[in-house]
C-alpha cells in the first residue's frame, strides 16, 4: 500500500496534526515504506486466532466508585497555557 500526499493530508487532519504542505510528499514516501514493512504480516495465517490487546489478556481492574482525589485545580492549572477563573481558555467556538 502506498500513500499519496493527499491521503497524508487527510490522515493528518484526522489526527489534528499540522503538517506543512511542502512536507506531505516526504511523509507520503516515508509512511509508504513503513506500510510496506508492516504488510509483511499479511503472509501470516491468523484464521481463528484471538486478537491480543494486552499481555496475558489483562483487563482493566475496577475499583469502588469513591472519591479518592482532593480538589487540586489550582495546582493542575499551573501548567495550562491560558486559564481564567478556573477555566481553560480556548478560541471562541460558537459565533
Amino acid at each position, binding site marked *: 500500500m502506498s500513500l499519496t500526499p493527499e491521503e497524508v493530508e487527510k490522515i493528518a487532519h484526522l489526527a489534528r496534526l499540522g*503538517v506543512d504542505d511542502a512536507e506531505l510528499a516526504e511523509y507520503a514516501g516515508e509512511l509508504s515504506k*513503513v506500510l510496506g514493512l508492516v504488510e509483511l504480516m499479511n503472509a501470516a495465517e491468523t484464521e481463528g486466532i484471538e486478537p491480543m490487546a494486552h499481555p*496475558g489478556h*489483562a483487563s482493566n481492574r475496577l475499583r469502588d466508585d469513591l472519591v479518592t482525589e482532593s480538589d487540586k485545580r489550582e495546582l493542575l492549572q499551573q501548567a495550562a497555557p491560558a486559564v481564567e477563573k478556573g477555566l481553560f481558555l480556548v478560541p471562541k467556538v460558537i459565533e
Partner: protein
Amino acid sequence: MHDKNLREVAEHLDSRSISSEELTRLFLQRIDTHDAALNSMITVCAESAIQQAQVADKAIAEAGGTLSVNKPLLGVPIVHKDIFCTKGVKTSCGSRMLDNFVSPYDATVVEKLADAGTVMLGKANMDEFAMGSSNENSYFGAVGNPWDQNRVPGGSSGGSAAAVAARFCPAATGTDTGGSIRQPAAFCGLTGIKPTYGRISRYGMIAFASSLDQAGPMARSAEDCAIMLESMAGFDPRDSTSVDRPVENYRQQLVDAEQPNALQGLRIGLPEEYFAEGLDPAIATAVESAVKELEALGAVVKSVSLPNQHLCVPAYYVVAPAECSSNLSRFDGVRFGHRCESPVDLEDLYKRSRGEGFGREVKRRILIGTYALSAGYYDAYYLKAQKVRQLISDDFQQAFSEVDVIAGPATPTTAFEKNSKTDDPVSMYLNDLYTISANLAGLPSISLPCALADGLPVGLQLTANYFDESRLLKTAHSFQLQTDWHTQCPPDYV
C-alpha cells in the same frame, strides 16, 4: 569513587567512608565537566540533589548505616529518564511539546525510589516520547555514546545509558516499549532489565504505547539491577494494569549464583531465527562464546524455534503507533504543554500546537497509527497485528515448554554512527528486531555486556517467562561473576 558500581557505593555509604553529599557533589562535578560534550542530561537538579543528600546523610547517621536497616539505596545518587513525572521539576519527555511542563506530581517509580532514599541528580535525555533507537529524535539534541562520541548511545533511554556508562551515576531509570532499555544498555556496555509487563507501575510515566510500556533499571551489573528493581517493582492501584503480586527478594536469589555450577540444570534455548541474515558476524561470535560460558556453569543449551520472529517488527509498527496516536491525542494545547501563537479557531489551535510541538518521528508514528485505526483499515492493520501478536506470544510459550531462558543478541550490530540511519525510518526500526518480541508478549528480558567488538560493547539478551525476573538476574549475575565485560569503562571516562 565514580567508577564504583551501585553495590560498592552502597557499601561505602554504609560504612560512612563517604557521605551522600560528598558523592552527590562528585557526580554533579563530573556531569558539569563532561556533559557539555555528551548531552546525556536535559535537566540537572544540583541544589535539590544536595538537599536530598543531606537528608540521606542524616538518616544514615540516625540508622547507623544503610545495609543493616535494609536500605541499600539510601543516599545513592541516580538519574531519572525524563519520561517520569517529577514534582516541581521540568518533565519534557524529550519534546518541545513539554519543554515548558513542570509536573505537579511524582511518578510512582520516582516516589518509590525517593522513599528508598535515592538522590535525584537530574533528568536524562531521551528520544522524543520514547520513540527512537538512537536518541537522535530528542528536541534537546542527540546524545553521544561514551565509547565513541560519533556514535549513538541507542534509544530511547539513550541519556540514561550514556550517563551510567560515563560514570555520572551508578544507576538510572529507563523505559522499554520495544527495546528502549536493552538496546541502549547493549550499545553502552550496561546491564538493563525490562521486567514483566505490569511488574512496575506506569503511573506518572508518560505513555507511549500502553500495552507495551514498562519501566526498568539500567546499571553496571545484574546485582545492581536487582537492588534497583526491588525498590521499583510492586502493585500500584493507580495503574490499572499493575499486577497485584508480591515482589521477590531479588538480591537474595543471587546468593546461589556464587556456587560452582550455579546454573546446573538451567535450560537455555537458542532460537535459530536469531542467528540469521542481518546479524553482524562479530555479534554472533560474541553471543555464542557467552552461551558457552553459561554452559560451563552447568546450563544445558538447545536449539528452539520462534517461527513468527520475522513478524515482530511489522506487527509492532502497527500496535505501537496505534496506541501512540491515541495516547498523544491528549497533547492538544489546551490543558498543558505547547500552545501555538494566536490561534484563529480551535482547529487551528490543535493543529498548529501539535504540528509545532512534535518532532518528525513522533508525527510519523501518529500518522501511521491514525491511518491503521481509521475506518476501513482497522481490521487489515490493527486487528491483524493483534492476531500476529498472539502468534508471537504463543511461540514463546511453546519454547518455554522446553527451556527456561531464551538467549540471543540484544542488537544486530554494535552502536552505529550518528546520522547514519536518520533518513530511513525502516532501517532504524530494524534495529529493534531482537528486543521487540518481549514487549509484544509482555515477557521479562535483560541485556548484559558480553564482549567488545572493535572497542564497542556487545549485548547478550536473555528472556524468560512471566515474572521470572529472578532467573534472568541470577543467570546474568552468574555470568558476571566469571567475566569482566560489565566492569569495562569507556576509556575517556575512567
